[in-house]
């Protein structure tokens, strides 16, 4: 009873559980294609901007830092860190979203649900208000600490009820705590206009204006999170059968849940610390990936990660192009362009359900 989340539609309304690609060979091929696409998008992200740079020049600038000229500086100091940040954030958010929806078995499970995003937002607004921090790299440790504290608090509260940490109790604890923290954020930004002025630019989510240090700072957390996520994927398939069955098949429930939650926290925390709350990727990418691979998490996790990168970087490139010479923040482009695409997908085929 306790582990049955509410979202399972009745048997007749269930879509066939398979995805577009069936069989390991097709999925492996798909993964390689997606990897190639990811590389192409990364190249695009380095080449395109207010000042477009030919791929040949990009290549030279990457290989040899001593080549004179503005292009080398732009490529090595602006475009590459930005692209790397997009790469890390896209991977993190896509994978965290897949894990979150798998653990909660809820299509609305976005990676911020554990209080990560709310915790980070609260910490950032506090850092602006109390310490006058105002740069992206200044926010990063505050955001990360807030993210960790938020998710630890949610886990403690969600697991202290009689039934232990069930997906429903975690999700509800997460949304209640998020509401509380967002209310405090609102209270601060309503009282302090200066805090609102800085916060409104952080909260849209952007890749611009971050230097290479930010990438280096979040990278270790992303790597650990990725490893944990891959380890967690097979167990997540078993958990999908229900906790009783999973236990019968030899899964240690608390270990599987704990690994997953830790991975989600690290990945989402790192991404949010790096570029602000970008909610859309984690929510939507797993649905797209599931339409391709079906519900097997061993495939779903890597597909979600790479799709996350492609989506995030494409949106970022688009944001640089549409509003030249200025640019639109990636969080905004992502939702405005991504949502119609997502809706078309939802309408066109019967989505593989969770």
């Amino acid at each position, binding site marked *: 009873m306790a582990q049955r989340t509410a979202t399972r539609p009745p048997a007749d309304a269930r879509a066939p559980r398979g995805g577009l690609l069936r069989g390991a060979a097709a999925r492996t091929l798909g993964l390689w294609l997606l990897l190639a696409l990811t590389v192409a998008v990364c190249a695009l992200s380095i080449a395109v901007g207010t000042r477009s740079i030919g791929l040949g020049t990009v290549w030279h600038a990457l290989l040899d830092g001593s080549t004179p000229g503005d292009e080398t500086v732009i490529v090595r100091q602006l475009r590459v860190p930005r692209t790397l940040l997009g790469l890390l954030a896209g991977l993190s958010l896509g994978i965290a979203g897949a894990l979150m929806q798998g653990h909660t078995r809820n299509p*609305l499970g976005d990676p911020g649900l554990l209080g990560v995003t709310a915790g980070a937002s609260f910490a950032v607004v506090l850092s602006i208000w109390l310490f006058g921090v105002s740069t992206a790299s200044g926010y990063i440790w505050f955001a990360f600490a807030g993210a960790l504290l938020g998710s630890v608090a949610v886990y403690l509260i969600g697991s202290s009820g*009689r*039934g232990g940490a069930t997906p*429903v109790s975690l999700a509800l604890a997460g949304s209640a705590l998020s*509401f509380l923290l967002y209310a405090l954020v609102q209270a601060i930004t309503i009282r302090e206009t200066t805090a*609102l002025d800085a916060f*409104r630019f952080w909260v849209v989510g952007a890749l611009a204006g971050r230097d290479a240090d930010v990438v280096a700072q979040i990278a270790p957390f992303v790597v650990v999170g990725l490893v944990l996520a891959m380890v967690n994927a097979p167990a997540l398939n078993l958990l999908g059968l229900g906790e009783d069955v999973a236990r019968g098949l030899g899964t240690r429930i608390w270990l599987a849940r704990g690994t997953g939650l830790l991975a989600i926290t690290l990945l989402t925390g790192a991404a949010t610390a790096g570029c602000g709350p970008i909610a859309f990727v984690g929510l*939507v990418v797993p649905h797209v990936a599931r339409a391709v691979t079906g519900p097997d998490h061993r495939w779903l996790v890597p597909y979600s990660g790479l799709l996350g990168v492609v989506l995030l970087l494409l949106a970022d490139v688009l944001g640089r192009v549409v509003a030249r010479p200025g640019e639109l923040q990636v969080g905004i482009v992502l939702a405005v362009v991504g949502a119609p695409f997502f809706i078309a997908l939802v309408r066109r085929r019967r*989505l593989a359900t969770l």
Partner: protein
Amino acid sequence: MTAVAPTRAPAAGPDPRRTLRIGRLSTAYRRRQLAVPLLVLLVLVLTAAVSLGRGDYPISVLDVLRVLVGAGDDTQRFIVLELRAPRTTVAVLVGTALGLSGALIQTFARNPLASPDVLGVTGGAAVGAVAVIVLGGATTAGRLLGGLGLAAAALAGGLLMALLVFGLAWNQGLDGYRLVLVGIGLSAMALAVVRYLLTRSTIQDAAVANVWITGSLNGRGWDQALPLAVALLVLLPVSLALSRVLGALQFGDDTARGLGVRVPLAQAVTVVVAVALAAFAVSAAGPVQFVALVVPQIAVRLTGGSRPPLLAAGLLGALLVVASDLVARTVLPESFPVGVVTSVVGAPYLLWLLVRGRRLATL
């Protein structure tokens, strides 16, 4: 892990339901399903009376109650009925509408995380209102919207967005899963537009918009209460009449069909009622945070049973908003918008209910 498998033993203890028989009609009810709404109503009346009494000219609760039943002296009547009652009325109506709307949507979607936000109502309303505040008279579109007024723009935005969600999700009937997915897509888009407008506006406009987004009762009066009251007068009976059908829908579409429910119609009516309730409430006071999503979950934990009780959710919503307004006006130093307080008051309560964990009601 040594914990026992969390399946509840069947028929543990006596059946908590009681039977009511009037002639040949009979119905089963739980005592708490009657007791909780009555208790909440009582607390709501008292809280509203306290709230009506507080202000620059304090009036005791007894005097307020006396005024409300038609007695009391002229000064008190003027202060309570003319000055303070409009705002408290808006609070009661907004809370009822949002609580009810949330309970309807959560029951329909069979998902404790669903709310009017998910169906795009809040997002659309926020786009409408923030566009009016930020664009103001600066552009033609802004002037056009501004002529409508803030509340009308919010109402139009909310209803349009919900219509869009509804239309895009409709495919020979309404699948809850698809509706929710379309809704989150469009809501994310609306949120992005709002945030974009906030980064493009002057900081003064951004501050005004920020208050609106939180949900506020400042400066609200009969003008806001009237449309909402009319909407509730129509929609409250409809939603209570839906209660039986919702109970059947909960078993799944097939079972409901077998029980004689016309499923597509029932689903469509449920969603339309929920959307309309939320849209009117949001246009009156802004998207008061927390109420629609969490109050139904609090209500179901208080009454027991397997789905959010409609009446109790509405009354609890009203109580939460009125109590938060009271806190916002009396305890806090400046006039914070009520939306800040609803979360601060409500979230710890839900967290406590979760920690105490008497029952893990899933929907």
